[in-house]
């Protein structure tokens, strides 16, 4: 069965490693913080100026001056630090953040990503996404395999304005974990109960399928 958002977040959380600084984008990526594997410590960076983000505040304890990049009220953990936006993107551009998780509208098999604009329809802006994808050595995209019309978002070539070129290396969708190498998607794992055929049929880009495709263990 296809994963829900929580399932995607749980699978991505398995990619975390002890000691990493991690930037989580808005939406599904934010949920990853709830499923940090036992025994490892990671620290979350939010590009609006905080390191050491904690959980949401208890009701009545919200502070308008303390939010994350999604403008949600947050708390901080012991050992947190606040800083300005130039310092924040120094961390990001300077590759001090070990992992970036973000959403996408489209990803192409050469690692291009599009997630900020639908010409004539929707323009929210790129926020920090262009800085993040251009800088991070380790990017995981959390996304749905298809759009609402059932069209694949895992493409030979992106159709929307790009956010970054050749930067995505790993994708986790509701159906599968894919890696990008040599201008192709590689099927690494499938969601529990999801068939390879379904994944193949919903992937427009070139997909390399090994003989055995393990199921995710969540």
């Amino acid at each position, binding site marked *: 069965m296809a994963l829900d958002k929580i399932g995607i977040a749980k699978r991505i959380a398995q990619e975390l490693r002890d000691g990493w600084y991690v930037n989580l984008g808005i939406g599904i990526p934010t949920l990853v913080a709830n499923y940090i594997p036992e025994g490892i410590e990671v620290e979350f960076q939010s590009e609006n100026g905080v390191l050491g983000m904690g959980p949401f505040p208890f009701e009545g304890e919200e502070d308008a001056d303390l939010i994350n990049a999604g403008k*949600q009220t*947050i708390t901080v953990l012991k050992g947190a630090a606040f800083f300005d936006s130039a310092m924040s993107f120094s961390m990001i551009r300077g590759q001090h953040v070990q992992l970036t998780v973000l959403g996408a509208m489209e990803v192409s098999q050469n690692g291009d990503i599009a997630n900020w604009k639908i010409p004539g329809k929707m323009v929210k802006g790129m926020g920090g996404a262009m800085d993040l994808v251009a800088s991070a050595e380790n990017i995981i995209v959390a996304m749905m395999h298809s759009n609402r019309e059932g069209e694949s978002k895992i493409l030979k070539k992106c159709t929307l304005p*790009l956010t970054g070129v050749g930067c995505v290396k790993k994708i986790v969708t509701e159906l599968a974990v894919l890696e990008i190498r040599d201008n192709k998607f590689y099927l690494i794992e499938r969601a529990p109960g999801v068939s390879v055929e379904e994944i193949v049929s919903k992937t427009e880009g070139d997909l390399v399928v090994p003989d055995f495709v393990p199921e995710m263990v969540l």
Partner: protein
Amino acid sequence: MNKVVKNVEEALVGIEDGMTLMLGGFGLCGIPENSIAQLVKLGVKELTCISNNAGVDDFGLGLLLHGRQIKKMISSYVGENAEFERQMLSGELIVDLIPQGSLAERCRAGGAGIPAFFTPAGYGTEVAEGKEVREFNGKPHILEMALTADFAIVKAWKGDTEGNLIFKATARNFNPMMAMAGKITIAEVEELVPAGELNPNDIHTPGIFVQRIFKGEKFEKRIEQRTVRIKN
């Protein structure tokens, strides 16, 4: 060097139609609310506003958009504002969208006398159109120019009579860089204290960057996304 002005009216003297303003804040967090209200009152028009966001429909820069006071916005993210999206898609508003890190760095550069710098952000995208591309360490970068403004308007938590500023938590965001990049920088603060009361080690924005400072009359500090846990 007493930089204190009596109130927001006095603070904003000299802001005219057609000027370029920088306004601190990320979303509604750390925005100069009192100054924005005064800009509405002044009715100055044809403004170019440099600010990470455009506020929401009825708060922050949304108030200036509503009154059609803004000709051009230079921002990184404008997703929480229907009126903004309408004006932009209809062509009434000129919009220059910039990657957030490049926006922050361009403001800092403007204040720091760095006219241009290379960044990887935006390479291969619309943002790179017309910009010089150069490889460093095998990776393509684009040349970005500094930004400055006629007035920079920032909001701080504490300030002293010398113009030294301390920001609180994530309300710091773009405020320090914009303070650097204004020809005239105006700071509205929650607490205004005599020189000597702030620890010189803890200053975020040294007073040299601030020309006018005043205590804001009231701070509503609206929350955009109130997310909470329930206590068991």
